[in-house]
């Protein structure tokens, strides 16, 4: 265009009338440039602020993770100072198909199955009980949630004493005084460890379930009472559907907790009797600290990592689009 007509918003003398919805041209172009620069600065700032935690993660998480994956390709001799041998996939294949690994995997699955559903149901039960408007219910709420204040070690020691075949109260109740300890009985050891775990996690389960119950609107519960629903119908058709996000959350988090369980097994059974409580975490520990076989341990670690990762991904998905119902 050779001849430029005066822009519409200039009057006959070339002065800008500048209608309010259109800022003057120069201001506009500056405004267009500066947000981009500001964005760049913001991004740099963001990374700067993230740097400390990135460093911590790198040192304590990312490096060990990469190192484990790397190690799982090497045969590591049990004596310090000896060179590692690259073994490629052969060690991985050998470990993953070994009887010990498969046993540990199976024990781990059993352990999750024993602990997660039971913890869920008991936690829900206590939460429903504590949700009643009864005199002195606060006391019970405190009691029900009290196990969060104990550590796995404390819980294990308590139960170790209770199950002691000579002096244990439980042994006495179940008429097993003087007999083989439950913890040494291949049929019962895993169950016993599971009971301790459920007990120890009960406080947390109770709190999570209680929080879920709080979110069930009172008028829904009241409506169902007027609509003739008994306690069971109310639980089944009103409370549980509203609680489903909480239940999913509890299942996933509970599973991860059980996959990572170590302390109670170490204290109560050390993986025995006859490997019957030798969950993956304990087997890994055993490989590193008793067998001095870091290569095998690395393979199992990576396997456990992948299993836990699946649960974590499920959890992230759930948190992103929580299974909630609009009212």
């Amino acid at each position, binding site marked *: 265009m050779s001849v430029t007509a005066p822009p519409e918003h200039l009057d006959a003398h070339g002065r800008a009338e500048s209608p309010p919805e259109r800022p003057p041209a120069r201001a506009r172009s500056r405004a267009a440039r500066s947000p981009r620069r500001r964005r760049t600065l913001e991004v740099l700032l963001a990374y700067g602020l993230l740097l400390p935690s990135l460093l911590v993660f790198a040192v304590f998480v990312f490096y060990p993770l990469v190192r484990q994956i790397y190690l799982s390709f090497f045969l590591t001799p049990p004596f310090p100072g000896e060179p590692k041998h690259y073994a490629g996939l052969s060690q991985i294949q050998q470990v993953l198909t070994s009887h010990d690994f498969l046993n540990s995997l199976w024990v781990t699955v059993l352990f999750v199955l024993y602990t997660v559903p039971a913890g869920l149901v008991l936690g829900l039960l206590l939460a429903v009980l504590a949700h009643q408007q009864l005199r002195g219910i606060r006391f019970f709420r405190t009691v029900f949630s009290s196990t969060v204040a104990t550590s796995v070690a404390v819980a294990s020691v308590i139960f170790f004493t209770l199950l002691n075949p000579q002096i244990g109260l439980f042994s006495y109740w179940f008429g097993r005084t003087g007999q083989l300890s439950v913890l040494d009985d291949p049929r019962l050891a895993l169950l016993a460890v599971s009971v301790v775990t459920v007990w120890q996690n009960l406080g947390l389960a109770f709190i999570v379930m209680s929080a879920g119950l709080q979110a069930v*609107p009172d008028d829904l519960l009241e409506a169902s009472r007027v609509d*003739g*629903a008994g306690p069971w119908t109310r639980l089944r058709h009103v409370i549980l559907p509203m609680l489903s996000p909480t239940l999913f959350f509890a299942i996933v988090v509970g599973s991860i907790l059980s996959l990572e369980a170590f302390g109670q097994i170490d204290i109560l059974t050390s993986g025995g009797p006859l490997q019957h409580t030798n969950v993956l975490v304990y087997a890994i520990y055993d490989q590193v600290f008793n067998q001095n076989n870091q290569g095998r341990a690395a393979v199992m670690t990576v396997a456990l990592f992948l299993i836990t990762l699946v649960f974590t991904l499920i959890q992230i998905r759930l948190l992103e689009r929580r299974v909630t119902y609009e009212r």
Partner: protein
Amino acid sequence: MGRVALTRVTKRFGEVTAVSDITLEVEDQEFLVLLGPSGCGKSTVLRLIAGLESPTDGSIEIGDRVVNGVEPKERDVAMVFQSYALYPQMTARRNIEFPLKNQRTPKLERARRVEEVAETLELTEVLDRRPAQMSGGQRQRVALARAIVRRPEAFLMDEPLSNLDAKLRTQTRTELIELQRRLATTVVYVTHDQVEGMTMGHRVAVMENGVIQQVGAPTEIYDHPANLFVAGFIGNPPMNVLTGLPTSEDGRLAIETPGGGIPLTAPQQDAVRRSGATQVAVGVRPEHIRLDEDGPLRASVAVIEALGYENHVVCRLEDGQQVIVRLRAEVAAPREGDKVHLGAEPRRLHLFDATTGARIGT
């Protein structure tokens, strides 16, 4: 028989007395409105009838039996909540049939009754939708359907229209009235909206502070408010109330207010004398005040609110107190700033003891 009766019912929550010594009888097939400001205990009364709360004192009857201590589900009442309280994961159909399922109604019968109610309330199209997929009005009707489908002795409704927009509310109000007349069931209806109170109920019970102030037909309550609270609460714009001393002149009693002395009829004078009230509150509805050269009150016009079909002339007395005059649109309104005189027919005056609030005379 859908009679509901409360006898000397009190409900306390710790220190708070939500309902205080209430006696109320709702007749079979009656539409009774519990009307009162927020926090006066309306919902509590309803919840006591439903069995969601148990009374601290007194007895509650539904039909012919005393239901104190009877579980809500055994009371054969249905409740519509302000929030509708629909089960979010259930479709409209399953919401509506939920009470029937709990009664173990056979499946075919259940389906038939749901269809029937859905048709009555024009819900057939949305039967397979969940509450989140419905409009506010549809949700409200599903809540209603869930109550109707059981054919209970009585319906309890707690502000069921308050979540609807103004237009839908008016429409639904009419539909609810029709529905109640058609089903011929007892309804106890809680609202703080006086228009709903006046238009829907056979009778209205006005509550304040946990106490029933007056029970009566809407016109009775409007024309003969039992006390200052009812007088002020019912009516829009509200009743004008001027307080003054009863003063005698030549043996004739008048109420001396800041705007001037208000003369009384002979029976009114008698009543005031007999009541022994030291301060008298004189109430006049805005539509009963006239702009009158010879009127006893001097005032100036502050604002004219033109509503199209009528004008509200807001006047101020000398001491700044406000008096509203309702004028039909055809009547020439004064201009803002004009000095006017106000008067009313003596029989239109409501007299109250200003200290106790109680009505003086008839």
